[in-house]
């Protein structure tokens, strides 16, 4: 079976779909143009490499860098959206990398729903982290590592859930985001050394 159009792969023409996009993070150069890099603390960087988009923090403790839509196009519904992403942390220790939805950028954990992969002290693991005016995390029980992981995060009115590498691993009902969101990725170093990770794929749509 084939579809009549790209649109119809995901929606029939009788349905007005919401915003949807696919970003492959392929090709040469810098950040794909729909994205904006925010160096929340320190001077980070991002560039294309053999794996996808390489994103790096500055070299100061807690330096962190976020990739998002620049707060210009928060087209995604906090109670009706999904995103699929593939991320990997390259730095083994004292670092976290996030991928998912967030309404803005900065040193806060407000209005977000992130797949959070961290290696630091007792925080080692892969989490579903959500935030409204305050934030909390659910440990998936999956060990953190330096491999690629594919997450799918679904935002609904009653919960946020996350599949990791195809398996449902976390459902949260507290601190759910309530404001319009954009796709976002974040990396933070816990030490005075730059940390880096890879973003390979991102797809997001309103449900």
């Amino acid at each position: 079976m084939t579809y009549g159009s790209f649109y119809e792969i995901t929606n029939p023409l009788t349905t007005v779909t919401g915003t949807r996009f696919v970003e492959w993070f392929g090709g040469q150069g810098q950040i794909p143009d729909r994205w904006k890099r925010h160096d929340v603390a320190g001077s980070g960087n991002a560039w294309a490499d053999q794996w996808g988009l390489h994103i790096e923090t500055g070299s100061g403790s807690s330096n962190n860098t976020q990739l998002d839509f620049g707060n210009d196009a928060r087209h995604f519904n906090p109670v009706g959206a999904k995103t699929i992403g593939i991320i990997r942390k390259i730095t083994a220790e004292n670092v976290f990398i996030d991928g998912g939805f967030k309404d803005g950028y900065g040193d806060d954990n407000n209005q977000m729903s992130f797949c959070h992969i961290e290696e630091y002290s007792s925080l080692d693991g892969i989490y579903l982290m959500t935030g409204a005016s305050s934030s909390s995390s659910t440990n998936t029980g999956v060990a953190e590592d330096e491999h690629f992981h594919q997450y799918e995060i679904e935002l609904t009115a009653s919960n946020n859930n996350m599949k990791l590498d195809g398996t449902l691993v976390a459902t949260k009902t507290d601190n759910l985001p309530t404001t319009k969101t954009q796709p976002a990725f974040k990396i933070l170093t816990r030490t005075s050394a730059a940390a880096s990770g890879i973003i390979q794929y991102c797809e997001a749509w309103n449900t």
Partner: protein
Amino acid sequence: MTSSKESVIEHLQPLTTTIKQRFVSDFTGNDDTFRDILTYHWTLNGTNTSGMLDEINGGYEITPAAGQNVILYTNNIRQFNYNASAFIVSTSAHGGNPNRAECSFGFSGSNEFSGIPVGSESKACFEQDSIYNYFSGCTSQGTGETITALGTFTFYDGNLHICKGETKASSCEFSHAGILGCVITSNLPDSKMQPAYEVRNIGAGTDGAKGRIQYFEAWNT
């Protein structure tokens, strides 16, 4: 039933068929002037204030200045066939009442949709004048024009609409929400065309005449 395939294109056609010109523009992302929407695919022409709308399902909002036409087009790179092509657009139109506005979108050989295209260019498009006509399909080969209403509903309601147009050997077909609305067999396009989306503030009003485009897909069939 969902079935996985090895590639995206195989969801649209088998690899035994030659892949023809196709593009998809999703109108989301940051609003810098250098972003791909206005660099690689589109040119925005006309006096306007436009940009990404920071709302859920916002898309790209085009607001012409009073009395102005604004068109998003591919700068006369016309890669789509006049009798074997299709487009799908998701869009909403706003304002234009009590003053006149017009929203037109689809394929055009020139850099505007209004009337019969100059220079013997063609068009196959949807159009709606906010106070006069019903939502219509429209065709031209540069010497005449045919406008046929899809139905009696109003396009200017601020809601998103999904619209599909097809150019064929002996007709152009226009559908709304998956339902065929009209078939035009006269004044059919006869030359190559490009994707385009135009908003006209005809009445020079300050009533917020604008169009929001959320999705544009075009391909040769």
